[in-house]
């Protein structure tokens, strides 16, 4: 394990090192002025300044607040709808056409509409996250229910399970690998939605707003620093939330192979 971990870090250092070298070459190439493509020697101190002043944490807080609310609402609606679709053909026939039409519409296309409805601020961003996150949750949960091993159902039925018991004790845990996959996909889409939404619909706070606002002041270093923060947060959630969730449930149960390190 520790050897695997060492290898993992060696790989990460090598790929980040290469990316840094390529970036520096680009920054020093003179293709754009240094103000537009700042060197890492500018970006890193800016980033350190954002962190040490604590401002970045306020922006992160606002962004996470919007994501978590939108995501929570999406799970609250999406999981039951997906379960119902998997269980009742009528629900599937009713919901699927709607989902099929709405889900390919990019969430950002809704921004102007949501601004008109909710005004600038949290509500529009939350609505956007909710929109982006709901469909992956619905579709994955639906697939999860359909992919439950029929033998589990048979075995449970032979032991007298039916109706609500069968659903709660067999179908729900049996579809969990897909539900978690949906959660993960929803989170990725939420990031896209929230950052995009904040650029247009947010006022004064949020990572998307920082990027957009920096443009006004030609602060490419701040924009790029914020992009790095978004990337790091994404990795953090993947490692600390999704991989842990998987490892403790479907991984522990041998239903999926969990990622190493």
């Amino acid at each position, binding site marked *: 394990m520790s050897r695997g971990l060492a290898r993992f870090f060696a790989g990460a250092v090598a790929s980040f090192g290469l990316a840094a070298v390529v970036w520096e070459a680009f920054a020093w190439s003179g293709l754009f002025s240094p103000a537009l493509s700042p060197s890492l020697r500018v970006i890193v101190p800016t980033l350190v300044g954002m962190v040490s002043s604590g401002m970045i944490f306020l922006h992160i807080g606002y962004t996470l607040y919007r994501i978590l609310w939108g995501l929570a609402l999406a799970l609250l609606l999406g999981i039951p709808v997906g379960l119902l679709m998997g269980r009742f053909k009528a629900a599937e026939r009713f919901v699927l056409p709607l989902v099929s039409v709405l889900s390919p519409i990019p969430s950002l296309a809704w921004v102007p509409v949501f601004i008109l409805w909710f005004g600038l601020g949290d509500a529009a961003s939350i609505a956007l996250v909710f929109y982006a996150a709901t469909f992956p949750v619905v579709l994955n949960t639906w697939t999860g229910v359909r992919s439950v*091993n029929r*033998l*589990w159902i*048979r*075995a*449970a*039925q*032979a*032991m*007298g*399970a039916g109706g609500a*018991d069968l659903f709660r*004790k*067999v179908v729900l*845990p*049996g579809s*969990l690998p897909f539900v978690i996959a949906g959660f993960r996909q929803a989170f990725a889409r939420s990031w896209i939605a929230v950052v995009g939404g904040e650029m247009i619909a947010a006022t004064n706070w949020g990572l998307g707003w920082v990027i957009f606002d920096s443009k006004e002041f030609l602060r490419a270093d701040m924009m790029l620093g914020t992009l790095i923060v978004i990337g790091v947060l994404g990795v953090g959630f993947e490692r600390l939330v999704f991989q842990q969730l998987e490892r403790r*449930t*479907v991984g*522990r*149960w*041998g*239903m999926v192979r969990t990622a190493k390190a």
Partner: protein
Amino acid sequence: MDQIELRAVSFEYTANGRRVLALSDVAFGVGVSEFVCVVGRSGCGKTTLLNILAGFLTPTKGEVLMDGKTLHGRGLDRGVVFQDFAQLFPWRTAQRNVEFGLEMKGVPRDERAATARRFLTLVGLDKFTGAYPHELSGGMQQRVAIARALAYNPSVLLMDEPFAALDALTREDMQRLLADVWRETKKTVVYVTHNVAEAVYLADRIVIMTPHPGTVKSQITVTLRRPRDPLSIEFLEYQKRVVADL
């Protein structure tokens, strides 16, 4: 009186627009605490027959009587063990798998746990109560499945080639274990297999079925003393008699 009685049971289904007669006029009885093996080549309808006994399928003609009453659907009076290891719930430990039927029966938690542990001990898995199915070998998983089917105390155990996917050595161990479990629990067992030696080792009576359509060709009562020696002359004689009718 027989505990299970099949009366001229036929089962017909439609596949690709063609009607297929899977079972035709199958009739035999199974006595209380009797171990009956149903043997036949693949396609002889033996699994269909077991699914009818389990209540997953309904005969298109004829009927099945259980304790003198017509059988309708599934019930906790029968326990079912399938061939596939995947029948266990992966999200439940061995003990919690065995508790499932008891939960459905509304047995309180402490009693459930005690009963589950007792049956896991019966199949020699008392040290693995907390293991998840994927941490157990195929043979161990099938033992959990047997414990699970016995724990809620059905009077009949229905088994569909439960050891077919195991390696030969493990299979022999499992057959010995099943013979012991049967002696201790006195369940009525209907056991479907295509393995002739397995049937002679386990059965009080062997029902031989032939395909197209599935019918009972003959029945052979095995009077060998238990535990049986698969290498004895008499054992091999029985095997020959069964093979001759297949």
